[in-house]
């Protein structure tokens, strides 16, 4: 792995007496594709949220490009998530009243880009993602796969350093899920963004370069995934 852009060291997160993360180290390099797997409740989503600055760890630290981010104020964290990170969730992240192109343009507008330019840039994402002609459709008028492609466009439109994807295929059928995750892994790499993907599906995880297996708040195994070959590290 080349120089990491995002690192989490000694991460602990407690909910009451429960430890969701029990001392986790994780790192992601630029254009790296990291899958986090584990059974439900293992702490994999908590790990994603801590790395993304959504949840503050009780112990340990998170650094982006060498700068600590877990101690930033809420406003700066919000700005960081908006400008340096992109997010793809299982479903529901698109605003139902906005047409697809405005959903993609929204993060850019929030960053201060005038609407006309933001929408123009947003439209440019549609043909490469197979969404040509769907710019004016509302999320409710898109299929599940199309909606996830729009979400991918929205995540990448701000040219983030890291894209976080939390069960992005969880609401899709297997074939569509394969399509979407192929697209996600391809375009994040094409645009030089790292990808942190949480999934419980090994076939989806297989699209990534590395895999962290999480259980009871700990990383129990790490793998390098290379063209179908699996190399265990821990």
């Amino acid at each position, binding site marked *: 792995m080349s120089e990491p852009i995002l690192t989490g060291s000694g991460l602990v997160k407690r*909910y009451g007496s429960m430890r969701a993360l029990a001392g986790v180290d994780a790192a992601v390099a630029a254009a790296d594709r990291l899958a986090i797997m584990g*059974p439900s409740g293992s702490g994999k989503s908590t790990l994603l949220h801590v790395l993304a600055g959504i949840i503050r760890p009780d112990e340990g630290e998170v650094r982006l490009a060498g700068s600590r981010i877990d101690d930033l104020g809420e406003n700066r964290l919000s700005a960081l998530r908006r400008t340096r990170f992109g997010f793809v969730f299982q479903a529901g992240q698109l605003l139902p*009243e906005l047409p697809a192109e405005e959903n993609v343009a*929204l993060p850019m507008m929030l960053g201060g880009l005038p609407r006309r330019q933001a929408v123009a840039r947003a439209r440019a994402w549609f043909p490469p993602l197979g969404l040509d002609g769907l710019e004016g459709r509302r999320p409710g008028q898109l299929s599940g796969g199309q909606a996830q492609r729009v979400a991918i466009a929205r995540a990448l439109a701000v040219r983030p350093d890291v894209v976080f994807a939390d069960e992005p295929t969880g609401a899709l059928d297997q074939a569509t899920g394969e399509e979407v995750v192929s697209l996600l892994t391809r375009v994040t790499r094409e645009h030089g963004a790292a990808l942190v993907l949480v999934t419980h599906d090994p076939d989806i995880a297989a699209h990534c370069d590395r895999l962290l297996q999480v259980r009871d708040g700990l990383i129990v195994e790490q793998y390098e995934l290379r063209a179908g070959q699996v190399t265990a590290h821990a």
Partner: protein
Amino acid sequence: MQNQLLAITAAAVSALVLLSLLGFGLGSWQRADRAGWLTPAASAEPTALQAATTMYVDGGRPVTVVELAQLPGKAATAAPPGLTGFPRPGQVYYSPALAALIHRLPAASLAGRFPRAARPGTLGKAGLSSPDALIAVIGRAAADPEMTARRGSTQDQSPTAVGIAGYATTASGTLSTNVSWAFLLAGALLIVPITVLAAASGRLGAARREQQLAGLRLAGATPRQILGLASVQSAATGLIGALIGAAAYAALLPLLGSYRVGGGTWFISDLWVGVPWALAVPAAVTLLTVASAVSALRQVVVAPLAAARRQDARGTRRGRAIAFLLILAAGALAQQSGRLDRVGLLALVVLVFLALGIVGPWAVDRLGRLLCRLARGPVLLLAGRRLADDPRAAWRTVNGLALAGLVAGFFSIAQLGGTGQNSSASEIALAVPRASATALVARAEQRLEAAGVHAAVTLNDQDQLLYVDDDQTVLDVQTSAAAGQLDRAVTALTGLTPTGYPTAGAYLGWDDAQSIRDLSSISIAVLVLSFVIAIASAGLTAAATVLDRRGVYRLLRLSGTPLGIIDRARLSETAIPLTVMAGTSTLIGVYAGLRLNAALHTSVDRGTALLLAGCVLLGSAGMLLALGLSRPLLRTVTADPGRRASRRGRARREGRKARAGKAERS
């Protein structure tokens, strides 16, 4: 749970306001009925004579003096309401409030106006419009000059006593009738905002259940089952709220009774609507809640997939604008025909409200689209898209204040300027026989001097206060307009001659002025209630919207959208249509008020124009406050979104462990 509480609150407020309004409306008719005996219908075969005069005391409090005389040789006349028998000559009865006032004021100011009676009786509630009513009943002989002399006439007293045969038929006083109509008009003006508030309570819960019921529908539940489920849930919420509102109404009756209008405060029994209405109103609010919830959920029943995924924008049709124009044209035609009586005017007001209700969502839709076109940043874009996406929902939020603006605009501008005639405030006039006029001047001077009143007494044939016969002239007294001086002068002159009671110029036109004060008081109450209802509607709807959209808001924050942007977009989607719609409707109300003033040749009062401005400012501030109250809720539902996700994961894991443990043990 929060939504249920909001829905219950909305239903409670609706029932409370509806029952209160109904109480005042029905109560004012009962008042008018009970005051009817003061103006009995003349009989072709009279058995008694009745003369009623209004005089004033204590700075303008009206005292009604009823003089009664049984005609000899005629059948016994029934007792007036509030008395056990028809008064015999020399008997005097006072209403409780008058008796208390007589006790409080010096005899030279009030008691001296009435015949001395060893034991004055008390006029009972059945003869009183209000606990504050000041009424004296004096029994006289039919041959008494007080009953037979032709009096000077004013609008407060007729020139002759009326021959009556009882109190079965009466001609109601104009004051009570005006107040009754004013309450009816107030009801018409407030019924729409109240309905909106009650309907909001149904929609609050329904919006939350939409996804759940859509899921049930997709799982195979029939439309009847879906609607049945929604109806039962909404009925429970609506009924609980409406019953709380009814209980609050009953508890607040003493407070409501202290509202002084139409001549005084209220008997509690007048404001109590009775058991049938007390049950019917909560039932109506519950039905409205259910109807509103079912209407909100009809999308689920018709197209569950669309409801689950919100495919379509809930746009509006141009037909609404056309219907609005048609209604306005019909109203304008009716107004120009000049045949609008009270019922017609009421119908016109309801029609204007209906027109606003029809055009409102369409106008909000167009406003939303315009905002979308003009938006350069995310706040206006989000607000505009939300408005265009569901204009009916946005209209429901601002509807109440738009209608309140119409009411405020109209009432603060209309019916102003007529504040009574005070050109002869220091004058007291008394009709006297021309033959004995000079002697009466001398006696008047003596009486006034004895009472300590400095006054100039003259005779005046051209007096403006009194209308007299040819054989009469007017004894004109010029004195100080101070209330104490007037009271003493009037008391001193009372009984000087049987040709009538002294009339003080200060109180000429009091009846009209009181009507205007009453209408003004009712309109202010309508205004305040409208704003309160509108603010409650907006606050409840804003809070419900936060709850309904918490999933979207949470994901927006999670993706880095500042809370301030979400909050500003949320406020804009209410504040912008509110400013445009309420501003426009207020201007329509002002225009209608100006037109009415022009027709009545009255002018705008600066004080009430300031009142309008104050109400608009306070209403807007209240609205912003109500919207702002849901800000902590927004912060709560979007706080630490990742933790919520992790909690769900933990719960799943604990559940799985528990199941695994159980399987192991077994």
